[in-house]
């Protein structure tokens, strides 16, 4: 038999769980997340960059530029330059990767697919 105190306990637990989930960060806008070898090196809130302003980051020899509309690998010492040729990325889920330098830039934010094939 459930006692009054048990019911109260369950209600409290559920309320606390809901609160925890509600407090998880979301909906702040798109970020450009720069990773080196799988670890986050920079997490840039794009909306926090001023109009006309460009921020530059260098991670393991790879140069990344970010503005309030997106991010782009602009320079890399890798031979194929595939990462540079990727161009600017701006939509959630898009990613530019320099495989030889193990540096990636991903746009994260609401609406991103769970994966991209191709």
């Amino acid at each position, binding site marked *: 038999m459930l006692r009054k105190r048990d019911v109260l306990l369950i209600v409290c637990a559920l309320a606390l769980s809901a609160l925890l989930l509600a407090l998880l960060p979301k909906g702040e806008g798109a970020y450009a997340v720069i990773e080196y*070898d799988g670890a986050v090196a920079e997490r840039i809130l794009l909306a926090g960059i001023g109009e006309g302003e460009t921020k530059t980051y260098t991670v393991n020899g790879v140069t990344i530029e970010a503005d309030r509309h997106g991010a782009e690998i602009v320079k890399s010492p890798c031979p*194929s330059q*595939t990462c540079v040729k990727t161009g600017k990325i701006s939509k959630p889920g898009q990613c530019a990767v320099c495989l030889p330098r193990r540096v990636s830039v991903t746009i994260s934010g609401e609406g991103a*697919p769970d994966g*991209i094939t*191709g």
Partner: protein
Amino acid sequence: MKKIASSALAVLLCVLLCGCAGIQSKTSFYAMGSMVTLTSYGGNAQSEIESAVVGLENVISCRIGDSAAAKLNDSGSAENETLAEIMRFSKTLSERTGGKYDTAIYGITSLWDFDAENPVPPSESEALAAAKGCGYGNVNVEGDRVTLLNGVKIDLGSLGKGLACDKAAEIMKEKGISGVAAVGGSIGVCGKKPDGSDFVIGIRNPFASGSEYFATLSLHDCFVSTSGSYEKTFEYENVIYHHILDTSTGYPVDTDIVSVTVVCESGMASDALSTAVFCVGYENGLSLLKQYGAEAVIVFSDNHVVVTKGLEERFKSVSDGFEVSYAS
């Protein structure tokens, strides 16, 4: 006191359970010449998956000097369960495609270096001579023993990433984790999201730069791979060369298809089939897909997209400029 402690523990457990099931964990590492990204709910198995994928790479990558595949290529014979299983699958697919799909093509692939600073294509005669010396007819598989005849060598690049997805998904299932394992452009989808909805996989726009996607597929418990002529290319004397090679000429496949995305129940099959359909063309490709119970999204150079019937409800175009039709 005991009651208070057990009550507190119950609350804590409840909070943790509710929280963990819904919290997304996203990690990445590098293996198989790709970035591997794991998006998971209900836990994280990165270390186990990384170890399994790197272990697989050390078996199947012919570009790693002491891998089982490299040793097989050097000696012409090896006893290895994984290689035997792969080559058995690959030989059957080669037979079904009349040799247009093949993994016994290291003689051709080694002539092309798409990652070089200034790539140069081999001459047509050199590529043709190499193509004549390749082929699955020179591969024998008996039990776990693989034997290569007449100096033929294997390159498993056309199915390796898909197979890595199989390994990742196996571990996620064992641990009761739902999520998405992406090895480059090959993806394993395990279960559903905590809210019961499908995972959403974008299909890269073959005509756009970057990883822009033109459509999405809502999927659960399956594997997805894409092969496209836009993936690895270089330009030499005003000609663009792509990396999917014709086994009869040693040169890039000449086709009006620009990308093939395959969905099926095996990662290795999805990866190999995406290349195979690209090589055999549309009509033969549809028949091949049916033999494996696979579905596909095929994009043509004129922006026409054909989606097989089984994906009709799961496919959603998110970009203008594509004409979509459905094949039965």
